[in-house]
């Protein structure tokens, strides 16, 4: 039940529903999809990437001079956590030796370890929180794979390119879409339970920007099912795969010949720095939602702070498309306790409709995400003022979910969306009977470290897979292509890094690139007390944080990372 001040608005949704349902049942688009020009118009006027101050040139490193999302530029221009001079002993006597170092224990990292283990290669997964604490775990709606008879991998290719405004790397999109059917089978063989039709064929639904029904799913827990399957398999190979939890990497290590040779880990339990020497290294650290870009709430997990970008960049790897950010069209707005949480796009894939305060459609429900989000922001903004306000000052539009049961038959929502039902039931809202209030939420790092289809970077021995990489999705990813991405490229990174590690010979280990980064900051006259990788965001209230920052040695903040960050106030005044 919604409180009285919102219940009146719900009535508008109910009032317009019979007509909208009638139209939906005809199979025709319920609202005209946008043309190329209309897309361009709504994006440039309303997408947060185009707002004032959203981007600025980065002043250091391989992409120097290029426009980047401001929050990312700030991270790349921050100090390292370590002093290379103090690491010299460690570099001579590493704490861990392994063939393959995998940084990050999410979907891509686990796939890389499993693939390496299948070839008898030893690996070490170093991860910030627990293995599986990753955005992979939280994906809800589905994965794209062209498995139905009406579909084809090349159609999938065209949809993905169009979603990314034709800027995606064609070679990467090809392997993404061409590997997809086999990934479905591989996951099934590892024990993933797919939603199926009674004859065994895959259940497929639409997602934003798909021209064929291509979304395969596991109710609305696809990430939790895939992640737990992969983690369980990783842990079935203790002889080949070691796991170090709460030990995030904070810098890469190169050898004297410029090859990647491992990383410096930081134990969150003991605050020790630990050296890993590895023949090949895979960055699978995921995205950056916890940077709260443009002040947005996020759907991302606690550790999504873009660490991989920072480390790879300092080591000399080039980044791609770091001027774009994905906002998921449907983050929760009410109740306040779940503000920003993900409402799966599968809701719209199954027929859910976004509606303004008059209960009217204002956008085709399945535009690509950037377009859909910009249209929702336009509807809520000053130009139209058609949003619905909550008591804490948030604004959103409705997402009509009850219409789904009317399209597919009663009980469909409870069967297909147990996670969404549970999330709202906790607050007394039955989404089979009442709509949800939604607004875009910071969701995905479209760009990342530039890779090729073998997941190689410009640094020999360094591989990147999953959300940390850039190029696959251009400047806008479609729903279901990130679940596919970490599966396809995690597996590929495992294969190719294993091949490389078989013959790689390492020279003397070095952190000279970290020392050089410090010199570059000085040369460019960059004065900052920011340290990166950020590792974890802080949600301590500002007055408490100021009391914590009073500790001696905080300016410049060159010690314990957890208590040496900008307060929100300081961040606001930062360039």
């Amino acid at each position, binding site marked *: 039940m919604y409180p009285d001040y919102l219940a009146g608005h719900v009535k508008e949704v109910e009032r317009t529903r019979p007509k909208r349902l009638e139209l939906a049942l005809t199979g025709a688009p319920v609202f005209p999809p946008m043309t190329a020009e209309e897309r361009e118009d709504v994006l440039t006027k309303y997408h947060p990437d185009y707002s004032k101050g959203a981007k600025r040139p980065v002043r250091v490193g391989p992409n120097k001079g290029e426009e980047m999302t401001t929050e990312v530029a700030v991270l790349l221009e921050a100090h390292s956590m370590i002093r290379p001079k103090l690491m010299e002993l460690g570099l001579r006597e590493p704490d861990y030796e392994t063939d393959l170092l995998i940084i990050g224990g999410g979907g891509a990292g686990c796939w890389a370890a499993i693939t390496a283990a299948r070839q008898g290669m030893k690996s070490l997964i170093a991860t910030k929180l627990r293995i599986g604490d990753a955005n992979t775990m939280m994906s809800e709606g589905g994965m794209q794979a062209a498995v139905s008879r009406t579909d084809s991998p090349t159609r999938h290719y065209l949809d993905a390119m*169009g979603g990314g405004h034709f800027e995606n790397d064609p070679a990467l999109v090809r392997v993404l879409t061409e590997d997809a*059917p086999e990934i479905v089978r591989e996951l099934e063989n590892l024990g*993933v339970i797919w939603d199926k039709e009674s004859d065994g064929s895959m259940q497929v639904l639409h997602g934003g920007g798909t021209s064929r029904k291509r979304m395969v799913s596991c109710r609305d*827990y696809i990430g939790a099912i895939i992640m737990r399957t992969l983690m369980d398999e990783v842990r079935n190979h203790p002889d080949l795969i070691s796991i170090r939890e709460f030990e995030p990497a904070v810098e890469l290590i190169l050898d004297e010949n410029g090859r990647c040779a491992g990383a410096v880990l930081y134990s969150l339990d003991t605050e020790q720095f630990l050296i890993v020497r590895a023949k090949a290294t895979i960055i699978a650290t995921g995205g950056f939602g916890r940077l709260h870009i443009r002040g947005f709430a996020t759907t991302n997990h*606690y550790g999504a702070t873009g660490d991989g970008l920072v480390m790879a960049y300092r080591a000399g790897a080039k980044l791609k498309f770091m001027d774009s950010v994905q906002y998921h069209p449907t983050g929760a707005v009410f109740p306040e306790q779940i503000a920003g949480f993900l409402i799966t796009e599968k809701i719209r894939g199954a027929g859910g409709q976004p509606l303004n305060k008059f209960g009217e459609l204002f956008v085709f429900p399945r535009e690509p995400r950037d377009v859909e989000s910009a249209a929702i922001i336009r509807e809520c903004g000053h130009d139209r003022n058609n949003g619905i306000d909550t008591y804490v000052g948030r604004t959103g539009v409705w997402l009509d979910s009850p219409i789904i049961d009317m399209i597919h038959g009663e009980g469909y929502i409870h069967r297909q969306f147990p996670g969404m039902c549970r999330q709202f039931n906790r607050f007394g809202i039955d989404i089979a009977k009442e709509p949800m209030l939604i607004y875009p939420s910071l969701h995905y790092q479209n760009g990342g470290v530039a890779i090729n289809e073998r997941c190689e970077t410009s640094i020999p021995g360094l591989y990147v897979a999953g959300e940390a990489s850039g190029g696959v999705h251009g400047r806008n990813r479609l729903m279901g292509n990130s679940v596919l991405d970490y599966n396809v490229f995690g597996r590929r990174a495992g294969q190719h890094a294993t091949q490389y590690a078989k013959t790689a010979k390492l020279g003397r280990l070095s952190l000279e690139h970290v020392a050089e980064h410090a010199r570059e900051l000085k040369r460019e006259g960059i004065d900052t007390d920011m340290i990166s990788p950020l590792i974890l965001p802080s949600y301590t209230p500002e007055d408490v944080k100021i*009391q914590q920052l009073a500790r001696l040695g905080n300016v410049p903040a060159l010690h314990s990372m957890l208590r040496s960050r900008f307060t929100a106030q300081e961040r606001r005044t930062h360039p």
Partner: protein
Amino acid sequence: MQKETEPHEEGGKRQHVGAHMVSVYINGKRHVVPEHATIMRAIEYAGHQIIRGAGCREGFCGACGTIYRLPGDYKLHTGLACTTLVKDGMSLTQIPSVPMEKAVYDLETLTPDVTAILQVYPVTFRCVACGTCTKACPQGLPVMDYIQAAMRGDIAAVADMAFDCVACGLCALRCPAEIIQHEVGILSKRLTGRYLRKESRELDDRIAEVRSHKYDGEYSKLMTMDKAALSKLYYARDIEP
């Protein structure tokens, strides 16, 4: 809606000005926090940086298992810190990790029946059907029922009932028979996906097509098109109803 000029930070103190406050005891120490806060936000509001005890923060990962008591109530309650709201007088502590041994097994050598449970998690058969696990489950799953199904070898039923498990391990910590219920659930789900599925003929055919390079020609055509041509093709494509 998050106004651009006014960054919204999750859990920041300012947004709660004027909110009603309640007292909670975090690890025995009293803190005053907003009454609408989740346990996780209350802990952070009090000034803690959570390291062990937060993961996805949305109810999927099971990192934030928490036990608590309420005034005048003898019960030891369980919940996820990210989705459980504080109550006045609540006394809580987070569980930093759940000690347990995940069995090492080879999925390819198991069969989807009671022998798999016997072989991998024999402790399952110590179940006394007390229902403590079901009471402890923050997802509201019928945990005891699926453990009983596992003892009968009804693997598909276990998978169905344990589908939404977040593996927080609170059931396993409360179980007087020391069963690790969530692991039994994961094993059963994997057995179901691997062995009890209906095969998809379309999927077989599509994989075979890709392997026989059926799409190579079309890919090379698409990959060499310029942006204008690709865009024309894209906006003209038909959309399946």
